[in-house]
């Protein structure tokens, strides 16, 4: 990855963090912490853009950063309408970093800069009075206080010790004193004059007013500088020595050019004293300890997603090899080999879990973009909507998370466009003017559950029924519950929207959402109540790479059925199960369940045993059976995608390699249902034979 790529990746992360903070600012009261987050993001982008030669980005971000700096230092009073302009600035930076500089883009930059400068001019005066109340006062940084008492301070009756004592009592701090005993001072040294200057680093949580009150009686005479530093800033020893006035930048640079250890070298060369180096080191340690406390210096390593995918592939291969070793150990009756196999299994499981852990990302990392979506749609649809998110810490495989974006955007757009009513309609219906969309993530029964719930109008059952009748999806005499009718919105091309907007309503959505969720071996569960709202739950496996499966056999062919879809296995009397059109019914627990024979579906030669097994699965709330010759047992399955040649074969979601090197196909239960069961369900089952549970 080259420098520019790294910049782009990091800039995206900072912009994302910035957007989340800005949206939080819009929804909540202003806080220094949020302003600092936005400022830090801008500051970093500006610095990095300059490093990679994106001067047009650097130019723009510099102006926005200056504005933000003034806001965080309370030189400009925060106003809620600033957020929209800052979001506009964030979007513009996104365009700038990905595009070539052009007159058009520069013109937009100038327009946005002009907008923020309006506040700069308007509010500077106001702030002068508010300035004394200014206080970043945050744990995300530290204060640097520099003060030099007046030369006559001691003879004027003031002392530094009580002031330093008061400062040290305010909280954690590091004090450095420097004595300006130059040649001239030594020749004219007057013991009653002050030659000392002080640097004090203090905890960022200390109140600015408290710091300044220590200088209440001397602030007009002494030189006092108080500045706040973010923990993002690096603390280099050389910089501290320069800031202490112990040496100059050019001397540091010359020294650095010769050897790396700044402090020792400067002291060795007599440029600074050992004492000064020690004091500077104390300051450096103070800041670094703060950074460590706030987690800013955690040893994180950035790894490309490709490398993680490769690692997972290798873990998959390892699982297969481990399975082969275990299988060989079992058949050889070699105790030593069996022990090694068990140890290998343990290690493989640990490596597998650790690798999965590395790939897990919190769902909340994508919530910010949905918040933005809702915000923008609220404005364009003229609706009042609040997005409430829950379970942002819920972790999910990064591959799942990436695949989840489009379905979630679609569902949220639907909720906004068709679910939430206009403010007037809501008031008329006795609801609050502001609609609520909840986005909740959680872990449930080893799966990730994402729920999108709105308190809008709910699905219009009658309208869906009419549309379904018109499209021939249902017959007039079909006995369907409201819930069944609601599920019809997942039919391809189905839409009841009377108008097509740029938000939704083209009828190419819900079936695509359903398909993409099922492609991830997930389920989509929809519940709606007219007038009260709609809730859509997406249930997904924690990972897509390795699943637990049930190994089954048909003739000599091995198949894997995802364990998450299986309800039970029952033995069937096949004499009663055959039907001319290939459709089967099995009776289990007093209920007739449609079934599909894998032998028949995949045209496998040979005869079905007299008592085949039927694996009852539950695919997207539809129960059906899969008839196989025998059930072998549970198998940890590494999913390998099928090549292009096999893409047209329905009912398979991939393949896996077994311990003995054989290839087994993994069954796609949802596709089997759609292709085999659904068409036969349209025929009457009344006259068919059925297979009895043995």
């Amino acid at each position: 990855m080259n420098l520019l790529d790294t910049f782009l990746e990091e800039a995206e992360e900072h912009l994302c963090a910035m957007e989340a903070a800005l949206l939080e600012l819009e929804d909540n009261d202003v806080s220094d912490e949020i302003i600092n987050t936005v400022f830090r993001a801008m500051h970093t982008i500006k610095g990095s853009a300059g490093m990679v030669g994106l001067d047009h980005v650097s130019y723009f971000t510099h102006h926005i950063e200056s504005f933000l700096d003034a806001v965080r230092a309370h030189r400009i009073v925060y106003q809620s309408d600033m957020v929209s302009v800052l979001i506009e600035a964030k979007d513009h930076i996104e365009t700038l970093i990905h595009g070539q500089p052009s007159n058009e883009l520069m013109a937009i930059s100038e327009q946005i800069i002009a907008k923020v400068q309006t506040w700069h001019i308007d509010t500077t005066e106001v702030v002068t009075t508010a300035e004394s109340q200014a206080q970043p006062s945050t744990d995300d940084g530290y204060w640097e206080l520099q003060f030099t008492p007046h030369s006559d301070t001691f003879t004027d009756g003031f002392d530094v010790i009580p002031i330093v004592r008061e400062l040290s009592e305010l909280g954690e701090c590091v004090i450095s004193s420097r004595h300006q005993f130059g040649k001239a001072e030594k020749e004219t040294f007057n013991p009653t004059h002050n030659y000392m200057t002080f640097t004090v680093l203090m905890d960022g949580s200390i109140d600015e007013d408290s710091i300044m009150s220590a200088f209440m009686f001397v602030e007009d005479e002494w030189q006092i500088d108080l500045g706040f530093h973010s923990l993002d800033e690096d603390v280099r020893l050389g910089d501290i020595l320069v800031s202490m006035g112990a040496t100059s930048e050019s001397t540091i640079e010359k020294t650095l050019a010769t050897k790396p250890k700044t402090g020792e070298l400067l002291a060795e060369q007599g440029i600074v004293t050992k004492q000064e180096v020690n004091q500077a080191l104390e300051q450096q340690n103070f800041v670094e300890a703060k950074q460590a406390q706030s987690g800013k210096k955690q040893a994180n390593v950035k790894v490309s997603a490709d490398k993680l995918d490769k690692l997972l592939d290798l873990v998959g291969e390892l699982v297969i090899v481990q399975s082969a070793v275990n299988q060989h150990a079992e058949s050889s009756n070699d105790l030593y080999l069996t022990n090694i196999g068990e140890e290998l299994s343990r290690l493989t499981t640990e490596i597998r879990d650790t690798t999965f852990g590395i790939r897990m990302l919190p769902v909340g990392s994508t919530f910010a973009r949905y918040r933005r979506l809702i915000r923008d749609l609220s404005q364009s649809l003229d609706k009042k909507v609040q997005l409430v998110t829950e379970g942002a810490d819920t972790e999910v495989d990064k591959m799942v998370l990436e695949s989840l974006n489009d379905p979630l955007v679609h569902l949220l757009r639907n909720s906004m466009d068709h679910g939430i009513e206009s403010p007037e309609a809501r008031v008329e219906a006795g609801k609050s003017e502001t609609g609520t969309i909840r986005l909740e993530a959680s872990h449930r029964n080893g799966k990730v559950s994402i729920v999108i719930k709105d308190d809008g109008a709910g699905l219009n059952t009658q309208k869906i029924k009419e549309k379904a009748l018109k499209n021939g999806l249902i017959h007039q005499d079909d006995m369907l519950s409201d819930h069944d009718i609601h599920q019809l919105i997942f039919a391809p091309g189905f839409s009841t929207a009377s108008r097509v907007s740029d938000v939704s309503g083209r009828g190419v959505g819900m079936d695509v959402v359903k398909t993409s969720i099922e492609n991830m071996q997930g389920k989509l569960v929809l519940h709606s109540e007219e007038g009260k709202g709609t809730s859509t739950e997406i249930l997904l496996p924690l990972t897509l790479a390795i699943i637990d499966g049930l190994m089954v056999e048909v003739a000599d062919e091995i198949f894997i059925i995802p364990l998450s879809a299986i309800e039970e296995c029952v033995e069937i009397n096949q004499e009663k199960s055959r039907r001319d059109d290939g459709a089967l019914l099995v009776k289990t627990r007093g209920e007739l369940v449609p079934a599909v024979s894998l032998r028949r579906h995949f045209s496998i030669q040979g005869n079905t045993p007299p008592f085949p097994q039927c694996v009852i699965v539950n695919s997207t709330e539809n129960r059906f059976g899969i008839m196989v010759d025998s059930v072998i047992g549970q198998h940890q399955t590494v999913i390998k995608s099928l090549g292009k040649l096999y893409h047209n074969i329905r009912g398979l979601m991939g393949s896996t390699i077994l311990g003995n090197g054989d290839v087994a196909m993994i069954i796609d239960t949802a596709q089997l249902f759609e292709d085999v069961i659904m068409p036969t369900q349209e025929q009457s089952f009344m006259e068919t034979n059925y297979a009895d549970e043995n």
Partner: protein
Amino acid sequence: MTVYTLPAELTVYTVNDTYQHLVDTLTTASDIVIIEAHAVDEIDGCGIQLLTYFASQCQEKNTNFQCDNPSESLKEAAKLLNVSTILFPLDEGIEA
């Protein structure tokens, strides 16, 4: 070895006298100057500044500087202004 005992008060009101004594001490000192500091009862920033100045003068003249038996007042003041390692180099900064 030359020894000088600091007075009980080392403040802006007394530093001129003490300074004169210290200058005299350094003029007559050979290889080491020992400052006996047990008696210091009252000290201010001006007093601390004098001692650090004297320590730097000793260093310039290649004379060893040693501050012995510092009183609690002196130790506390030196610690507050973070000059313990200058005044008590052998003790690596005495704990106040």
